[in-house]
C-alpha cells in the first residue's frame, strides 16, 4: 500500500485496537503478488533455523502460544476438563526441571471451545490466568441470522469467554462488498465489549491472495484484536503464504494506525517443525513482539503432543513416544 503515509499515528503503549473509520483506499491500494509470496516462503525455511537449546526454548514458547482446542460435536464436560488440565500443565514437570523452566509457570495461550463448553472450562481453569476462547457467530459457516450471531457473542462473553473467535461472512469478500464486511465485524466488536475479538477469515474459501489481504485490512479497521486464518474445517486451512500476507497486512495496519494486531494461524499446524516455521515468519516479518501470546497464537489440537516428544528428545538424545506424555 502506497500513499498512506499521512495516516500514521504513534501510540506509546500496547493499547487495544479501537478500529478506524472505514477507509476504502486502504483496501483498494493493496497489491499482492502470489508467486513472490510463495518464493519468500520457500526460501525462508532455509534462511533461518534454530538448533539445540535455542530450539528447546522456542518450542517451549510455542506451547505458550497454543490455543489448545477442542471443537467437536462429541465434546463433553469430561473431555473439556482433561483439555484444561493439559493447558495448565502442558509439559511433564521433570522435563521442565531439566530445562531449567520449572518456575516459568508455563501454560498454553488459551483454551478454545464451543459456547456450551465455556462453564466447564471456566471451572477447570479456575485460579489460572488462562483465557477461554469461544468460537462464535454460527461457527464454522457463519450463516445463522445476524441477530442470533450477535446474541451468541454476548452469551459467550457473559459465560466467561475472554476471547471470541468469530467467522466472517465469506460472501462479502467474494462479492467485494467490503463495507458490508466492515459493518459486520464492527458489530461483532461492539458485542464483544471487553472480550478480545479474533476474526476468522476462512482463507481457504476467499478465492485469491489479494482478497485475503483486503479482508485482513477490513477486519482490522473494524476493530479486530486478532486476525485468524481458518476455522480448521475448510478444505485448506492455515498455510504459510497466506500467513505471510496477513502478517504483512498487520504490519501495514500498524504503520497506518500504530496499533499492533495479533495473528492466529489455525488448522494443519500439527508438528513442532511447522510451528517453528511460523514463529520464524512472525519474527522476520513482524518482530519479537509477535512471539508472545498477546500477538501470536496457534489454533491447534495435536501440536502439543509433538512438541513434548521433541523436548524430551532434546533432553535425552533419543526419540520419545506419545504414551510417555500425559494426554489432554
Amino acid at each position, binding site marked *: 500500500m502506497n*500513499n498512506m503515509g499521512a495516516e500514521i499515528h504513534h501510540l506509546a503503549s500496547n493499547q487495544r485496537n479501537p478500529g478506524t473509520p472505514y477507509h476504502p483506499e486502504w483496501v483498494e491500494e493493496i497489491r499482492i*503478488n502470489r508467486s513472490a509470496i510463495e518464493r519468500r516462503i520457500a526460501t525462508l525455511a532455509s534462511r533461518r533455523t534454530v538448533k539445540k537449546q535455542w530450539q528447546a*526454548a522456542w518450542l517451549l514458547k510455542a506451547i505458550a502460544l497454543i490455543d489448545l482446542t477442542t471443537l467437536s460435536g462429541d465434546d463433553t464436560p469430561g473431555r473439556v476438563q482433561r483439555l484444561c488440565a493439559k493447558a495448565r500443565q502442558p509439559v511433564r514437570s521433570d522435563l521442565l526441571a531439566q*530445562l531449567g*523452566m520449572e518456575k516459568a509457570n508455563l501454560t498454553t495461550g488459551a483454551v478454545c471451545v464451543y459456547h456450551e463448553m465455556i462453564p466447564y472450562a471456566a471451572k477447570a481453569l479456575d485460579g489460572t490466568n488462562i483465557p477461554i476462547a469461544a468460537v462464535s457467530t454460527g461457527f464454522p459457516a457463519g450463516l445463522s441470522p445476524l441477530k442470533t450471531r450477535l446474541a451468541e457473542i454476548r452469551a459467550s462473553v457473559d459465560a466467561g469467554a475472554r476471547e471470541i473467535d468469530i467467522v466472517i461472512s465469506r460472501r462479502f469478500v467474494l462479492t467485494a462488498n467490503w463495507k458490508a464486511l466492515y459493518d459486520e465485524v464492527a458489530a461483532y466488536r461492539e458485542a464483544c465489549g471487553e472480550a478480545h475479538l479474533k476474526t476468522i477469515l476462512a482463507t481457504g474459501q476467499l478465492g485469491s491472495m489479494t482478497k485475503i489481504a483486503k479482508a485482513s485490512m477490513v477486519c482490522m479497521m473494524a476493530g479486530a484484536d486478532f486476525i485468524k486464518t481458518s476455522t480448521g474445517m475448510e478444505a485448506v486451512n492455515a498455510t504459510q503464504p497466506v500467513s505471510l500476507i496477513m502478517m504483512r497486512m498487520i504490519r501495514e495496519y500498524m504503520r497506518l494506525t500504530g496499533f499492533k494486531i495479533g495473528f492466529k494461524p489455525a488448522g494443519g499446524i500439527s508438528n513442532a517443525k511447522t510451528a517453528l516455521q511460523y514463529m520464524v515468519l512472525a*519474527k*522476520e516479518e513482524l518482530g519479537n513482539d509477535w512471539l508472545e501470546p498477546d500477538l501470536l497464537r496457534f489454533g491447534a489440537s495435536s501440536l502439543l503432543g509433538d512438541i513434548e516428544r521433541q523436548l524430551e528428545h532434546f533432553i535425552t538424545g533419543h526419540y520419545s513416544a506419545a504414551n510417555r506424555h500425559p494426554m489432554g
Partner: protein
Amino acid sequence: MSVAEIFENMEYGPAPEDASYVHDWLKSHKAGFSHFIGGAWAKPSPKAYFDDINPANGKVLAKVAAGSKRDVDAAVLAAKEAQKGWAALSGHKRAKYLYALARLIQKNSRFIAVLESLDNGKTLRETRDIDIPLAARHFYYHAGWAQLLDQELPDYAPLGVVGQIIPWNFPFLMLSWKIAPALAAGNTVVLKPAEFTSLTALFFAGLCEEAGLPAGVVNIVTGAGDTGAALVEHADVAKIAFTGSTDVGRLIRATTAGSGKKLTLELGGKSPFIVFEDADLDSAVEGLVDAIWFNQGQVCCAGSRLLVEEGVADTIIAKIKERLSHFRIGDPLDKAMDMGAIINPTQRASIDKLVQQGVSEGAELWQPDVKMPAKGCFYPPTLLTNVSPSNIAVREEIFGPVLTVMSFRSLDDAVALANNSRYGLASSVWSENINRALEMAAQIKAGIVWVNSANQFDAACGFGGYRESGFGREGGREGMFEYLKPKNDGSTKGEAVILAPEATGTVESVGFAAIDRTPKMYVGGKQARPDGGNTMAILNHKGEIAGRVGAGNRKDIRNAVEAAFKNPCWAGRTANNRAQILYYIAENLSVRAGEFTDRLRDLTGASKTKAAAEVEASISRLFSYGAWADKYDGQVHTPPVRNVALAVKEPIGIMGTVCPDNAPLLNFISLMAPIIGTGNRVVMIPSERYALIGTDFYSVLETSDVPAGVVNIITGKRDEMAKVLAEHDQVDGLWYHGSAKGAAMVQRASISNLKRTWVNDGTARDWFDTKTGEGRRFLREATQVKNIWLPYGD
C-alpha cells in the same frame, strides 16, 4: 545461553553445518592439487603451487597447481586427441555420460555445497539450495540436447576444443554452464577455474573419473590470469567461452581477433530493478534481497540500481531499511545466514572504494546496525540514496552488496534511466499491471527481464546480455548454437575481395549513362553529398571508368549512424509491415532488372545470363527475408517453476555491414535484407570494387517506402569505413566481409563497446547457394534473444 534466557530473548543461536568430512578430503590432498589432464592427475610443470584461501577466516584450504603454458599445451593436446572420438559417439552415448555426471553431482551435492561455501565464502544456504541443484539441472538438461542433437540440429557440427574460463562468484555453477553444453555438442574442453576458487572444479574432475568419461574430454587446468591467457592464445582452441569482468572480456576479444576462434563473453552488468507504484512493495523489497544481497552482490546480473516510482520512493526505502535491520551476516556455513564473506580483501577494498567515491560525489550512505563478524572478509549490505545517473556508484559495476536508489516519474522516464548504462545484462520489473510490466519488458535493453522476480535461472532459458555485458547465450536452444557450427558454413566460391583491373585511362565510359550523374551517398532517406567532397572512380571490367562514387570519410559514417539512430521506430513496426517493405523492394528491383543486369555486365564482365541470374537471385532473396520476417519468431521456455519465459528475438539495433566484391548486388541484398527484416537499422558499405551497385540501389529504396534512416549507404574504402564503424560506440553490431586482415582489424576495433561482430576471416561465401547465402544463420547473427520471465498466479 540457557533455555530460560532464550525463552525471554527469542534469539536464533548458531546453526553450523558439519564440514569435517570436507576438511578430511582437503587433508588427503595436502601435498597440493594437480591438474586434471587427459583423464589423469598431472603435476604442474614447473612444480608451482599457490594457496587457496577460505575468505570467511583467511585460512589456507589447499595448495593448487599454478598452470604454466606447458600445462595448458598438454591439456589442449589431450582435448584435441579426445575430440574426434567423443564427437563420433552417438548422441545417446554422450547423453548417458552427461546423465551420469548429473547423477553424481546430486549424489555428492552436500559435499560440493560445503566445499563451495568454504572456498568462496558464500552461504551454504545458497550453494545447497541454488548453485548445486542448478548445476545438476544443467547436466540433465544438456544430456537431453546430446540425445536430441542429431534430430534437432542435423546441419551442425561441434567446434573442436573449447577453452573455458570461469569466474569465482559461482565456481561450480559456471563450470556446469560451460561444460555441459560443450560436451553435449561433441566438443572437448579445457576449463580454467578462477584462481580463488579451484576446489569444486577439481572435485568435479574426480566425478568425471567416476563416470568413466573418456580421457581428455574434460581437462581442468588451475591457475591465474596468465594460465587463462595461454589458453586464449592457443592455436588449437576453436572457441573461448569466458565469464568474468568486462575488462578481461575486452582483452580476450582483442587477443582472439582474426583468429577465427568463436567467442562468447558473459561480462559485467549494472542491472536495473524497477518498481512501479502498483507493485506489491513488500514482495519487491524481498525481490531486492534476491537481487542485490544474493551472493554478497557478487553477481554479474545483480539488480544493483533500484529505480522506483517517485510517489512510493520513501515508502520503499523505509521498507528496505526495516528489512536489512534484521539481516544476518557471518559464518557462511551457518544455516541461518543471509550473507557470507566477500571473496577476498582486494575485492572488499574495491567495493569500499567505490562506495566512498559515491559518497564523496554526494550519495547518502546507509548501512544497518547489525552484528558483523569480527574476523574474515565481510561487507555490510549498503544503501546509497540521493544519487543521480552521474554518480560513480550508479555507473560502475561494484560487484558487492551495494544498492543505489533513484526515482522516476513515468514509464518513459523509467525506460530512459534503465537503459542509461553501458551494460545490458538483466533487469527486474515490478508491477501488478501486466500491460505496464510487458511494455517495460519490451523496452529494456537487456538479455533478461524478470517480471516480479529476480535472479531466476534455468538451463532451459538462455542467459546472456546486450551491449557491454557481452554476447552469446548460455542455456536453452540459443545456448547450443554457441558450441556448434554449420556443417557447410565453409562453402566458398571465388574471392571476397576483387581488385580492379589496371585502369585504361581517365576516359569515362559513356556507354552506360548518357548523362553525367553526381555520385552521392544515401543517408537518412536522402541522397547526401560526400562530406569530404571527394570521389573515387569505379572501373568496369575493361578498366574504363564506369562512374564515380563519393569517397566516404569518418563524418559520412557519423552522419549515417546518426540518421539510423533517429529512427528507432523501425523495430516497433510489425513483422508483417517489414515483410511488405522487403517485398516492395523486390518488386521495384524487378522493374529495373534490365538496368541492374547491364550494370553487372559492365562492371564485372559477367555474361548476360549470369548477370540476369544474379538479379533474379537478389529478388528471390528479398522474398526469402520477406517470408522470414514474420516467421523467425521466439519461443516459450518452460522452466520448472510456475512461470513462462518468453524468449523473444530482438534486433541488435544499429548495425554496420561491409560487403565483399563477389556477386556485388546479390551480396548487398543478402546482407541487408536479414538485417532490416529483423528490425535493425543498417549502414551499408557496398562492394568497394563495384560501389556503383550501391549507389544505383538507393533509388530502389527511395521508391519502396523504406523509412528514412533504416538503410544508409556509404561508399568508400572498405577497411577505412569498416574501422570507423567498428570503433563507433553507437553501432551495436558489425558484419564484415573482406580480407582476413580486415576481419581481424574489425574484431580488434570492436572492443570499445564490445559490439557483436560477424566476419568472414577472408573467405568468400557462395551467395548463390541458398544453404550458405541465406537463412537462419543470417537471422541469428542479426538478432539477440531476450528472455522475459513471467511468473503467474493470483
